[in-house]
């Protein structure tokens, strides 16, 4: 019913556009033959062989539509004249097909509708209508007009066999074929190259099918399925896994080749089969966004996934290693690695051995040192009751620390770790520790990190250090001989390079800790200062630190005049950059004349706060 209505509608429509009836139209044909250069297209269509005869001809390989455009014998000369050259690219080939299968539309696009012959216009309208039905939503399309009905309409209107199965749209660059991984139009491929690509796609599909079968088998094995035929439980063999591995690497190559899709190591790995990665989520235009390298982005997406499920497993451990190799400053990965180590009960010495290599390769990294800290915290209880094992471990750690500090002598994080380790393993009395520090100071007497470590080693020893005492505070429990020894040590080093501040700071710190007056080193300080204030030429200062200390000593002895002279000379000549500071020290002197000396004041302040 609908079919009939449509047919009449088409007929009416065509009649409306063109006063000629359908039959008249057929009869118009011969007239066109008079103008050899501008034949209406209808002409050769009219003379098309009936469909049934096409079977005798060799079937065209590409699309069935080509069969309808085979030139007839009568039109051979004309056809060859207008036939385009052999296509070089896929796009060209498709465009030629389009022109062949949609001659009316092709002609309209070329010349415009108004310039077409009336027959051709009619043919075009009919063509549009028939293809229009194809453009309707898929569901209604099939029921609307079948190929047979279309042909009938065509025959009714044009009196010829129809071209129903023409290409719908004119092929355009890029939009029709899409781009390859390099962003080139696939349509611009040569036929051979395109065929090659096509073969690869087929190969990929085949691999994907096999891979799917494998994955289903893995799933079946997991659920304990039984094979219906053999009656045995499904088992995925090693061989099958190996085959799958090969398959995946092949697939990765093909995918990369075809689409530029980089399947990372993990996505193609059988081991990560069951993990659904969580890709990096960030809105467009996020600030300081990093264009992550594919490998890093993939690894991170798997890390997010396993961290969400709190998975602790050997594969997670390997994943952390993989990420650390790419970004050793990633604190999240380090913490997760530690959690894995502890959850899996991995041997701590093994982990430390691995860590040593990473540390040597990344000297400035500090996540490594916190990781080591966590490892030792975890390991310590297992060896704490065995003094020998403890000593052995301490030695091992020290040897490594010495090695790494020889590369980077003032690495703050290494020294922090070392200081913590001394407390943790109780290395206070370990002579080797002090010796190795002495060796470092001998190598570079200006290595303040080594001096600082020495101070901690000597004065934080819980054997006599009072807990809770500030570092700049007197501690009565510190043995006198230690204070004397350390003052002597500092002095011997200060002689080597008097302007090196480290031993001066050290000595001052020791004196304060031991509760000794600074004046006890007055003679030593005066060795570096000659004829102060006795004239520009006469005056000799070998160490501004000595002068600074002397100023304090004189102030301590209430000799403010001398103290002021030291500070003045520092400000005027010897250490001008600290002019403001020396001025302040001088102001403190005069202020304390009415109140108290700064030294006493400080002690009182410390006592006040210690009570808090």
């Amino acid at each position: 019913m609908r079919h009939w209505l449509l047919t009449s509608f088409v007929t009416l429509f065509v009649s409306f556009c063109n006063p000629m009836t359908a039959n008249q139209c057929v009869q118009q044909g011969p007239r066109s033959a008079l103008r050899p250069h501008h034949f209406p297209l209808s002409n050769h269509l009219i003379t098309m062989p009936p469909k049934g005869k096409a079977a005798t001809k060799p079937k065209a390989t590409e699309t069935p539509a080509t069969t309808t455009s085979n030139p007839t014998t009568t039109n051979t000369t004309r056809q060859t004249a207008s036939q385009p050259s052999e296509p070089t690219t896929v796009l060209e080939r498709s465009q030629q097909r389009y022109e062949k299968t949609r001659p009316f539309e092709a002609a309209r696009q070329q010349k415009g509708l108004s310039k077409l012959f009336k027959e051709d216009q009619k043919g075009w309208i009919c063509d549009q209508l028939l293809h229009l039905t194809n453009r309707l939503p898929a569901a209604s399309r099939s029921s609307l007009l079948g190929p047979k009905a279309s042909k009938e309409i065509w025959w009714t209107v044009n009196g010829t066999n129809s071209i129903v199965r023409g290409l719908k749209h004119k092929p355009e660059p890029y939009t029709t074929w899409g781009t390859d991984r390099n962003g080139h139009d696939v349509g611009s491929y040569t036929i051979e190259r395109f065929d090659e690509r096509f073969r690869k796609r087929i190969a990929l599909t085949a691999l994907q099918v096999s891979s799917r079968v494998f994955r289903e088998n893995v799933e079946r094995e997991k659920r304990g399925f039984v094979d219906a035929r053999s009656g045995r439980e499904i088992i995925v063999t090693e061989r099958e896994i190996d085959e799958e591995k090969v398959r995946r690497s092949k697939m990765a190559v093909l995918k990369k080749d075809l689409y530029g899709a980089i399947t990372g190591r993990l996505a193609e790995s059988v081991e990560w089969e069951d993990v659904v990665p969580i890709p990096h989520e960030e809105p467009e235009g996020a600030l300081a966004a990093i264009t992550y390298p594919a490998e890093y982005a993939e690894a991170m997406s798997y890390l997010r996934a396993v961290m969400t499920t709190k998975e602790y497993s050997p594969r997670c451990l390997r994943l952390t290693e993989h990420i650390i190799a790419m970004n050793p400053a990633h604190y999240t990965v380090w913490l997760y690695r530690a959690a894995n180590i502890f959850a899996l009960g991995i041997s701590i010495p093994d982990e430390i051995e691995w860590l040593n290599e990473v540390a040597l390769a990344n000297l400035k990294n500090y996540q490594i040192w916190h990781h080591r800290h966590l490892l030792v915290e975890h390991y310590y209880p297992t060896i704490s009751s065995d003094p020998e094992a403890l000593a052995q471990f301490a030695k091992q750690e020290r040897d490594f620390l010495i090695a790494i500090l020889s590369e980077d002598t003032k690495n703050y994080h290494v020294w922090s770790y070392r200081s913590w380790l001394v407390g943790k393993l109780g290395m206070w009395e370990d002579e080797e520790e002090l010796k190795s520090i002495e060796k470092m100071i001998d190598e570079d007497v200006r290595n303040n990190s080594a001096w600082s470590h020495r101070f901690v080693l000597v004065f934080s020893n819980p054997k006599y250090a009072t807990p809770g005492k500030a570092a700049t505070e007197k501690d009565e429990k510190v043995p006198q001989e230690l204070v004397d020894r350390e003052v002597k040590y500092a002095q011997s080093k200060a002689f080597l390079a008097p302007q090196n501040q480290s031993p001066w700071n050290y000595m001052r710190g020791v004196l304060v800790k031991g509760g000794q007056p600074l004046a006890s080193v007055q003679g030593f300080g005066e060795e570096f200062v000659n004829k102060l204030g006795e004239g520009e030429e006469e005056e000799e200062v070998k160490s501004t630190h000595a002068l600074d200390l002397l100023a304090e000593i004189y102030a301590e002895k209430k000799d403010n005049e001398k103290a002021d002279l030291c500070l003045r000379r520092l400000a005027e000549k010897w250490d001008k950059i600290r002019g403001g500071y020396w001025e302040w020290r001088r102001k403190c002197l005069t202020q304390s004349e009415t109140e108290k000396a700064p030294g006493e004041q400080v002690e009182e302040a410390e006592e006040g706060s210690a009570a808090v």
Partner: protein
Amino acid sequence: MVVRTKATRGRNRAIFIRKFPKNKKENMAASTTSSFPTSQEGVATSSQQNLDAITDDDFEYVDEEFVLSHSAEQQAQPEPMIPDLFKQPSLVKDDLITATSQLQDQTVEHCLPFLTGEDGPLDLNDYGLSKLNREKHIKFLKQSLGPLPGRFVAVDASRPWYLYWCLSGLTMMGEDVSSYRDSVIETARTMQNESGGFGGGHGQTSHLATTYAVILAIALVGGEEAYDVIDKKAMWKWLCSLKQPDGGFQVCVGGEEDIRGAYIAAVIITLLDLPLDLTPESPAYDGRSNLLTGLAEYVRSCQTFEGGISSQPNNEAHGAYAFCALACLAILDNPRRIIPSYLDVPRLVSWLSYRQYAPEGGFSGRTNKLVDGCYSHWAGGCFPLIEACLSPSGPGSEKNKAATGLAAAPESLYSREGLIRYILCCCQDQTKRGGLRDKPYKMSDPYHTNYVLSGLSSAQHQWDLDSDPLPLPNGDTTPSLAAVGADSVWNVFPYIDENDQIYEDSDRVRPIHPAYAIPQKNVNAIRAYFQGRSGFASTLGGE
């Protein structure tokens, strides 16, 4: 301002020599006149007079000849006013050579040509300083906010820092960063974890450092929509889980405990007006303690025998941690009271003062280490807090017992001139790249750009603490129930040098709060917003 050309400076002499090899001596006069038209006559006449003086090497003669005549002509212009202090190696120097002294000597050698104007840009002012190259630095920071190439994977865990460094640097240079509000909001959202706090990026564990950076970035762009990104309740719970029984904070769950944690926690608690109560899940929960209990004591435990502050107890004193310590204390209570109560101020001031080096003018981070532009902030930024702590209280206020005996700070405790010279001469990357740096021959980066500018800002301004310590209840000496230091009123003025100001007024950057390191108005705005929503009104919703 006098603009000098490079021709008078040493480095060009070398270039000049290379231009005139021996065999081209005859053409010398002609070619010099063409390249230096201004000195045409001088060269022609004096070279004639001095021909008799040709000694063994005419090569050197040619060069000397030209330079002598050329500089003679230029002597009409005054030499830049650079004090000898910044032009010569230090007065007292040891003979013993070690690795440390070699590096130090090399650094001085690298810096001196920049300090004296031999290296660096052509345009110097009367004081031998180059201008702050705002345009290039702004461009550099803006680029650092843009998409970064793959090799930046190494900073994947520090991306929030990039937000703060860049936005803060831009703000100090007078840029309006509110246009970044939407992108900061979007970026921050992906970094926030449901369990509270911000990590370095999507799926990264929350960390105090990254949280600090994100919150400051949010405060910098401002606006309620931005503030609302922060899940305050989750933040509070997370902070409780980091609080340790000894008073300090871990930087992340399972992470290290150090003084950064103490400072950042104080910043977060006060900016977001978090409740101080501890959750029962907190490692420090004992029914009596709160988030601030023992925090000042922890800071105190980090002061070393040298007077400086270390990252953790028993480590070496380090500039960055000195700032964290002082700023943390300044947030907890009035600096006049709390700093002398917890730290040995004379030792600290001594150690801090020794961080400044001559002739470089910049600050170092530790004893016997090299100057680095970033310590302009870490060490330089301590001085406003120290000066506040030494400043006398107003009449009628509770007299601070601890600080008596210490004189008020003079006009400036450190050499502002030295620091400004180091920053403008040595820290600017004058190439197309822009940005500020550690020291000459180092690459600029957003970290150094921000902290060098922060240091410049504090050298160019003077901060006056306008609050006096409030009496404490029950005769306590320290506050344990509230961070009242955050309410301290600070007034800022441009620092006016009693001598001449060595830099151009246009090179003055904007001031930042001495403890929060962002402009005061941003601190006030975010605090006001969260104080206006006490408790968890904004996040509790229907609970």
